[in-house]
C-alpha cells in the first residue's frame, strides 16, 4: 500500500507550519496527500489571525505549483474542507480535535544560542504543552517529533540511531533554567554591577544628559542579562556534553517524550543540517537563511578568508524535501507504543560531503559565477588554507582588538565626513568580525565533533516504500550528486537575491521633496553645526574680534587659546558648562552694539556659513505648513538673520546689568541635553503639536534627548556618538554640505564697521538736516573740489 493510501482518512496535526520544514511538509500534505486531513497550529501575529496567516502561507512561492494546479477556487476549497487552524502557540495550545491521528511537531526554537530560559521554554516546555493538550483532547495520536541529529552531543565516531545515552535529569535542568533569569536579573541589580553600567553609560553619553545616561545604563543592564542567560545556556550545554543550548534542550525534549508520553506511539526524526530542496516544491526552494547560507554568501562576497574547519571533516547536509519525505514515511508507519522509532535523516554516512569538497564546490561556483559589489566589480574567490582553528582564532582576536582600539581612537577624532566614513567602514569591519565570531563559535563544536551519523533505520524505512513512492516520496541521500546539488541547485538559489540586474544610474533628482503633515507638526532645528558650520566659540569671535584693533585681537585669541583645553573638557562633560564658560566672556559688552554688529557684519558671516541644504529643508517644512522652531544655545542676537524662517526662536539670552552692559551671565540656564526635550514637550502641549509626527534636526550627541522626543529625528552631519546611535536606531543621517570656498573668517570686515561707526558718529555730533546742504558738505570736506 502506498503512502497516500496509508495516510488517507487520517488527520495530521502540524506544529511549526510557518517554519522551514513545517511549510514544506504542509505543501506536501496539501498537494500530494489529498485524502489526509490537516490541522495546523498557528500563532496569530501582528494583528493577523491564524487563518489569515495560513492564507499568507499558501500564497508563498513554495505553494505556487499547487496553486496553479488547483486555481484560486480550488485552493479555497481545499483550505476550507481539509485544513483546520488552531490559533495558539507552544505556550498555550488550544483544544486539539479528538480525532487527530498523527502529530508532527516541527515547532521549536531555531536559534542555536537562545537565552537558557527561552530555550527550555520553547524546546522542552513546548513538548510538555503538546502532550498536555493531547492528553486533554482524549486523542491517541502517533507523535512524530522533529529533533536534530546533533542531539548526540560532543563526541566523535559513528552515532547509531536510538535512545540517547545520557542520564541528565530534565526536571532539575528545567527548574534551574527557569531560575536562571531571576538570578541574572538579581545579579544585574547588584549595586556594584549597576555602578558599572552607569559608569559605562556616562562615559559614552554624558553629553546627552542624565535621562539619556540612565536610559543607556538600563539598556546595558538588560543586554547584560540576556547575554548572561545565553552564556548560561551554552556553558550548561557544554558542561553536560552538548554543543549548545539548542541541541541540549532538544535532547532533553526527546527524553521527556520517551519517559512521559503516556504510551503514545512515538517517532523521533533527527535531520542533520537542512538545506534547500532537491526537487520539491521546486529545486532550490529555501526559506530564509539557515546555517550554511550566510557563510556561502560571505565567501562569495570575499569576506571569509579562511575557516576553522578540518578539510576532511564531514559536513552533514540534507535537502529539505528528503526530510519531509522521511517524516511522511515515518508518520505512515507508527511504531509500537512501547518502542519509539528513531530515524536520523542525514547524508554523512552514505553520501558524505567533506568540508574540503564543499569548499571546492563553493570556490568553483563563485569562480564561474562571481558576485559583484557595487563599484568594485566581481569579487575574487578566496583560497582557503585550512590553517586550523588556532590560527583563524588568532586572526579573529587580532581583528577584534584592532576594531576596539580604532573605535576608541575615532572617538577623539574631530567631526568630519572622513571620520564618519571611517566609522562606517569600521562598523562594517566590526559587523564582519562579529559575523565571523558568531559563526566560528557556532561551528566550532560542529566542526570539532567528527561525527558520522549512521542512518540504517532510515534506510530501511526508505526501502520499505513501494516503487512508486520511492520515486515520489523517496529520501535516499545517495540519490544525488553533491556537485550537481550544490552548484546547480543550492548555490544559485542562495545567491539569486544578490544577483539583481544592474540598475541604471538614477536620473538627476531634485534635492527637495514634499513633506506630509500640517500645522500640528513641529520641525525643530539646532543651529551650530546643523544649520550653520560654526561653533559657540567661533560665533563668539565674530562678535568680539571685529571691533578690536590688531593687538587686541591677538590678546583675545591668546586668552582664548589658553582657555580652549578647558572648553574642550567642558564640552565633553556637559554642553551647558561650555556655553556658560564661553558666555562669561561677553561680560562688559553692550547689547545694543552686539545687535548692530550682527546687522552690519556678523550676520553676513552667519549667512555665508549657512548650509544650503538646511535652508531648503526648513523651507520645505514651512511649505508643508509645519511650525518651525529654532532651538539653540547660541546667543539670541546671532539668530536674527535667520529668524524670519522660524515661527519660534529659542536661544540663549545674555543677562544685562544695571549699567546696561552684559554681565557675562545668562538670563536662564542654557537649553541643552535633557532640557531641550523637556522644553519641546512643554511647547508641544502649549501649541497643541503632535511630537510623534514632528521632526528634529541636530548634529551632536548632546541633542539626543531632543531627537528622541520626536517621531522623525534626523541626524545632520552627526558627531560620532550621535552617528552611531542614529545608525543603530535607523534614523536618517543627512549630510548638509557647507558652502565650499567661502572664507572661514571669524572676523567681520573692520572696514565696514568703521564706515558704519563713522556714520553714526556724524549723527551724534552735528549731523541732521542743517548738514544736508550738499555743496557745502562737499566743499568743507575737500576744498580743492570746486575747481
Amino acid at each position: 500500500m502506498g503512502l497516500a493510501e496509508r495516510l488517507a482518512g487520517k488527520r495530521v496535526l502540524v506544529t511549526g507550519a510557518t517554519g522551514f520544514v513545517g511549510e514544506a511538509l504542509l505543501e506536501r500534505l496539501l498537494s500530494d496527500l489529498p485524502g489526509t486531513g490537516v490541522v495546523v497550529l498557528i500563532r496569530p501575529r501582528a494583528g493577523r489571525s491564524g487563518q489569515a496567516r495560513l492564507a499568507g502561507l499558501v500564497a508563498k512561492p513554495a505553494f505556487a505549483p499547487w496553486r496553479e494546479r488547483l486555481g484560486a477556487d480550488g485552493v479555497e476549497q481545499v483550505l476550507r474542507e481539509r485544513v483546520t487552524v488552531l490559533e495558539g502557540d507552544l505556550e498555550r495550545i488550544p483544544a486539539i480535535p479528538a480525532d487527530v491521528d498523527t502529530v508532527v511537531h516541527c515547532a521549536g526554537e531555531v536559534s542555536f544560542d537562545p537565552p537558557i530560559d527561552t530555550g527550555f521554554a520553547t524546546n522542552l516546555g513546548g513538548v510538555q504543552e503538546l502532550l498536555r493538550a493531547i492528553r486533554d483532547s482524549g486523542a491517541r495520536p502517533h507523535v512524530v517529533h522533529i529533533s536534530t541529529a546533533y542531539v548526540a552531543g560532543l563526541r566523535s565516531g559513528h552515532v547509531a540511531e536510538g535512545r540517547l545515552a545520557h542520564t541528565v535529569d530534565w526536571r532539575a535542568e528545567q527548574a534551574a533554567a527557569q531560575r536562571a533569569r531571576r538570578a541574572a536579573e538579581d545579579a544585574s541589580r547588584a549595586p556594584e554591577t549597576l555602578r558599572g553600567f552607569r559608569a559605562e553609560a556616562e562615559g559614552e553619553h554624558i553629553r546627552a544628559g542624565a535621562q539619556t545616561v540612565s536610559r543607556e545604563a538600563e539598556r546595558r543592564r538588560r543586554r547584560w542579562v540576556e547575554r548572561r542567560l545565553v552564556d548560561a545556556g551554552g556553558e550548561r550545554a557544554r558542561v553536560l556534553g552538548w554543543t549548545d543550548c539548542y541541541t541540549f534542550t532538544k535532547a532533553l525534549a526527546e527524553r521527556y517524550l520517551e519517559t512521559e508520553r503516556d504510551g503514545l506511539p512515538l517517532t523521533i526524526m533527527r535531520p542533520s543540517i537542512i538545506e534547500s530542496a532537491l526537487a520539491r516544491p521546486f529545486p532550490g526552494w529555501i526559506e530564509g537563511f539557515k546555517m550554511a547560507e550566510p557563510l556561502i554568501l560571505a565567501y562569495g562576497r570575499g569576506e571569509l578568508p579562511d575557516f576553522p574547519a578540518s578539510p576532511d571533516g564531514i559536513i552533514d547536509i540534507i535537502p529539505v524535501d528528503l526530510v519531509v519525505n522521511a517524516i511522511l514515511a515515518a508518520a505512515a508507519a507508527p511504531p509500537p507504543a512501547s518502542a519509539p522509532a528513531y530515524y536520523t535523516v542525514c547524508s554523512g554516512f552514505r553520501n558524505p560531503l567533506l568540508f574540503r569538497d564543499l569548499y571546492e564546490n563553493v570556490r568553483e561556483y563563485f569562480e564561474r559565477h562571481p558576485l559583484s559589489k557595487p563599484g568594485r566589480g566581481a569579487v575574487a574567490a578566496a583560497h582557503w588554507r585550512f590553517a586550523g582553528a588556532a590560527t583563524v582564532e588568532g586572526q579573529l582576536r587580532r581583528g577584534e582588538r584592532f576594531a576596539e582600539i580604532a573605535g576608541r581612537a575615532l572617538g577623539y577624532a574631530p567631526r568630519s565626513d572622513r571620520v564618519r566614513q571611517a566609522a562606517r567602514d569600521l562598523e562594517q569591519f566590526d559587523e564582519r568580525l562579529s559575523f565571523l565570531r558568531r559563526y566560528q563559535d557556532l561551528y566550532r563544536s560542529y566542526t570539532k565533533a567528527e561525527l558520522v551519523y549512521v542512518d540504517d533505520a532510515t534506510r530501511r524505512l526508505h526501502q520499505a516504500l513501494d516503487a512508486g513512492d520511492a520515486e515520489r516520496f523517496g529520501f535516499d541521500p545517495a540519490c544525488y550528486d553533491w556537485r550537481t546539488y550544490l552548484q546547480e541547485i543550492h548555490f544559485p538559489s542562495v545567491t539569486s537575491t544578490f544577483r539583481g540586474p544592474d540598475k541604471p544610474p538614477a536620473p538627476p533628482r531634485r534635492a527637495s521633496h514634499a513633506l506630509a503633515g500640517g500645522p500640528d507638526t513641529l520641525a525643530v532645528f539646532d543651529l551650530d553645526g546643523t544649520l550653520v558650520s560654526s561653533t559657540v566659540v567661533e560665533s563668539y569671535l565674530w562678535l568680539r574680534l571685529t571691533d578690536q584693533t590688531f593687538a587686541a585681537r591677538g590678546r583675545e585669541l591668546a586668552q582664548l587659546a589658553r582657555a580652549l583645553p578647558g572648553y574642550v573638557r567642558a564640552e565633553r562633560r556637559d554642553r551647558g558648562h561650555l556655553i556658560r564658560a564661553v558666555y562669561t566672556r561677553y561680560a562688559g559688552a553692550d547689547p545694543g552694539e552686539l545687535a548692530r554688529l550682527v546687522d552690519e557684519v556678523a550676520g553676513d558671516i552667519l549667512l555665508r556659513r549657512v548650509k544650503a541644504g538646511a535652508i531648503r529643508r526648513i523651507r520645505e517644512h514651512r511649505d508643508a505648513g509645519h511650525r518651525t522652531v529654532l532651538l539653540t544655545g547660541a546667543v539670541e542676537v546671532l539668530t536674527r538673520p535667520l529668524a524670519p524662517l522660524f515661527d519660534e526662536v529659542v536661544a540663549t539670552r545674555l543677562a544685562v546689568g544695571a549699567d546696561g552692559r552684559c554681565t557675562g551671565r545668562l538670563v536662564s540656564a542654557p537649553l541643552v541635553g535633557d532640557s531641550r526635550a523637556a522644553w519641546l514637550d512643554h511647547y508641544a502641549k502649549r501649541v497643541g503639536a503632535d511630537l510623534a509626527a514632528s521632526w528634529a534636526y541636530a548634529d551632536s550627541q548632546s541633542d539626543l534627548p531632543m531627537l528622541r522626543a520626536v517621531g522623525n529625528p534626523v541626524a545632520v552631519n552627526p558627531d560620532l556618538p550621535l552617528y552611531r546611535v542614529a545608525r543603530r536606531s535607523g534614523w536618517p543621517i543627512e549630510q548638509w554640505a557647507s558652502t565650499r570656498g567661502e572664507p572661514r573668517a571669524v572676523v567681520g570686515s573692520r572696514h565696514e564697521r568703521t564706515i558704519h561707526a563713522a556714520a553714526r558718529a556724524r549723527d551724534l555730533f552735528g549731523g541732521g538736516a542743517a548738514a544736508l546742504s550738499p555743496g557745502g558738505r562737499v566743499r568743507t570736506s575737500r576744498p580743492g573740489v570746486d575747481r
Partner: protein
Amino acid sequence: MLEVDERTPPLLVHQGEGFGLERFPLGTRVVYPPESLPELADVDAAIGRALAEPENSEPLRALLRPGMRLTIAFDDLSIPLPPMRRPDIRQRVIEQVLTIAAEAGVDDVVLIVANALHRRMTAAEIERTVGERVFRSFWPDSLYNHDAEDRDNLTHIGLTENGEDVEINRRAAESDLLVYVNVNMVAMDGGHKSVPIGLASYNSLRHHHNSHTMIHSRSFMDHTRSAMHSSAWRMGRLLADHLKIFTVETTVNNASFPSRYAFLMKREWEWSIRDQAMAFGMSRGLAAMPVRPRRKLFQDLVAGYGVTGVHAGETEAVHAKTLANVHRQQLVEVNGQSDVLVVGLPYLGPYNVNSVLNPILAMCLGLGYFFNMYRGRPLVRRGGAMILYHPVTPEFSQLHHPSYVDFFEEVLAESTDPATIETTFEKQYATDPWYTHLYRTSHAYHGVHPFYMWYWGAHAMDHLGDVVWVGGDRAACARMGFRAASTLADALEMVSGTVGRDPSMTYLHSPPHVIADVR
C-alpha cells in the same frame, strides 16, 4: 586678429581663478581686443565740460533751482569689471554734480544705487564707488540702495505702447530732476537701460528679462537688434515724458588689469622675458595655490582703467556718443563666422564682485556675455560649437546667491530649457518671501535673478549645436545640460560630431573686452 601658425606661441586662456597657456590648432583665428585707447588728459575738466555743454539739453546748472528735489542714481558694482582704482569715475561725476547743485541752492538731494534686482551694495562698497566725502555726507539716509520690492517706494508710471509696465523707484520718479551716472563698460550698458532697468521693480523688469526677449536679442551688445533693449527703449521714452532725466555716461579704455599684470593685456608674441616669466609662473603658481588665498588675490585685483569719454544730457543723444566711444575701443572687424568659438572665462562676471563665480554665472558669462560680444552675426555659425574654459566648480555664495543654489539643485534638475523653466518656476522664485527678505535686508541677489542669468544664455543655447567646457566639473556641467572635457583636443573630438574633424576655429581672446563686428 591673428591666425595661428607654426611660430605662434602658446596663447593665454583665462580659466576662472587662474589661466593656462594653450597651443591652438594651426589656422585658428584669434580675435584680440584693440589696443587700449589713451585716457583723457583732464577727466575733471571733461566732466565739467559735459555738464556745462550737454547733448540736446540745457546745461545742468540751468536745470537746478532752490527747493527742488534732485536725485542722483548711479550704476552699481556690476560695472566696471574688475572694479576701477580709486577714485571711481562715478565719484568724480557725482562730486561735480553735487557741487553745482550746492551752488544752485538745491538741498533736497538723494543718491540711489541703481542695483535693480542685484544685491544691495555694502556700506564699504558704496563708499568705494562714491568716495569718502559723498558717502560721509549722505549715507545712510540720503544715499541708499534701490529696493525693487519696497511696494511703498515704487511708482507705476504707466504702460508702454506694447503694454509693458513701467514702474520705478518712487523717489526717482517724484524728483524734479534725475541725474543718472553710468559707466559704459560694454555696448549693452547705458542708454535707456539705465533708469528703466536699474531703478525698476520686478513687475517692470519681467517684460524684457524673459526667455522670449533674450532669444530675440541678437545681440545684447547691439541695442538696435536687441528685443530686450527695444523694450527698455520704449520704457525710457515713456519715462522721459514724465520725468526729467539728465544722463551722464562715461567710457573707459581697455586697461582691465593693474599694470603689474600687464601681460594679461598684451599679445603673447609681444611678451617680454618678464611677461613670459610672470605668465608661466602665475599659471603654475595659481594652480597650486589653496582656494582661499587665490580667491583673495583675484578679488583684490583693481583695474587701472582710464576714462576715454564723458557725455551728458538727453539720454539717447548721449548714448549715441557713448556707443561710438565704446566701439572705438572694443570693435574689431572679423570676416565671416567659424564652426567653433573658443573662449576662456575669467574669475569675474558682473554678478560676483567680491564673491564666487558659480556654475550658473559661469554659464551666463560664457553663453550670455562672451557669445554675445558681436555685432551683425555671431562669431560662430548657427549649429556650430562653443568651447569654454572654466572649472565650473559647484560653489555658491550663500550670502550673495542663495536662490542660485536652489535653482541649481531644484530647477535645473527638472529642466534646462529657458522657456520651460520660466513657465514652471519663475513665479515661485520671484515671489518667494525668504529670497525677498534676503534681497531686501541682506546682500543677496533677488530670488528671480538666476532665472535671468539662465535666459541670458537662451540665444546662445538656441544658436549653438554643441557646448563643451574644458576643465569643467563634470557633474555641474551635466546638471546644466553641457559636457565637460579635460583638454582642448578632447573637446574638439567631442564636438566633431557637430562640426566635423577639421572645423574652422575662432578664439576670442578676452578680457579685455572686444566686440567682434562679423561681416
